[in-house]
């Protein structure tokens, strides 16, 4: 018996919301970036699963995944640059401490 598509989707959903929980809950900015990567991975998994399993002729889902790779990489780079700049400003990466944009 091949693994049903629903299984992959379920795993993807679980991973996605774990990552989302991490984004909303953790204080450390770098950890939040990590959790965002988790979410992206979950999305990639769902995309590939649908692309390979739904009997489509081409691999458009997979192509999209390639672009998601690209964007994720770029986003991590820039995000880390921002975190570093923030760290340089005041030596903290705790997001609850950074409230200068208030109001």
């Amino acid at each position, binding site marked *: 018996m*091949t*693994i*049903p*598509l*629903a299984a992959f989707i*379920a*795993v993807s*959903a*679980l*991973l996605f*919301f*774990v*990552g*989302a*929980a*991490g984004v*909303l*809950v*953790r*204080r*450390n900015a*770098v*950890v939040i*970036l*990590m*959790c965002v*990567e*988790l979410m992206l*991975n979950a999305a*990639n*998994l769902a995309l590939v*699963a649908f*692309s*390979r*399993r*739904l*009997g489509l002729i081409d*691999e458009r889902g*997979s*192509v999209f*995944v*390639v672009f998601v*790779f*690209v*964007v*994720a*990489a*770029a986003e*991590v*780079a*820039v995000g*880390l*640059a*921002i*975190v*570093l*700049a923030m*760290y340089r400003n005041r030596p*903290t990466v705790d*997001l609850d401490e950074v409230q200068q944009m208030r109001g």
Partner: protein
Amino acid sequence: MDGIGTALFAVLALGLVGGGLAVVLVNRITAAALFMAFTFLCNAGMFLLLGAEVIAMFQVIIYVGAITVLIIFGVMLTPQGDRRYGLFFQKQTPVAAIVLAAVAIPVVVFAFSFRDPTGAPHLAPGDLKALTTSIFVDYAVPFEIASILLLAAMVGAIVLVKRESDDAAGGER
């Protein structure tokens, strides 16, 4: 043969979700980063199970290879003192938990009850040919634009991290 597949899937799924939970819940950042890498690897395994070898390869190279390194860079460059567990969560955690639960539960329930519409799955031998055809022929322009995006991100990251040279060591001005 399928039994192996199913067992493999179970292991990988556990690793995936467990790794994710570990990233969110572990105290030490370095450990969290390594758990993240572990998650990426499990994801690559998932791709292989699905028959998308190229994607799996990309996953390992890009995620496990590059992004993990980047994250570890970030961790190393922003040292914080040890924090107690209590200061671990953001102030908004209770509210966030409720809201996220409200969103997550329906979606996950729906995901678990998802029924595959097409019946017999179609498995292409591998995805290399189709993938490369798509990238370099059908979606060549977005591909190029993606490379420009990478360039822009690189430049942006450099600019963002640039030091303001106030001291005399800044050179000619």
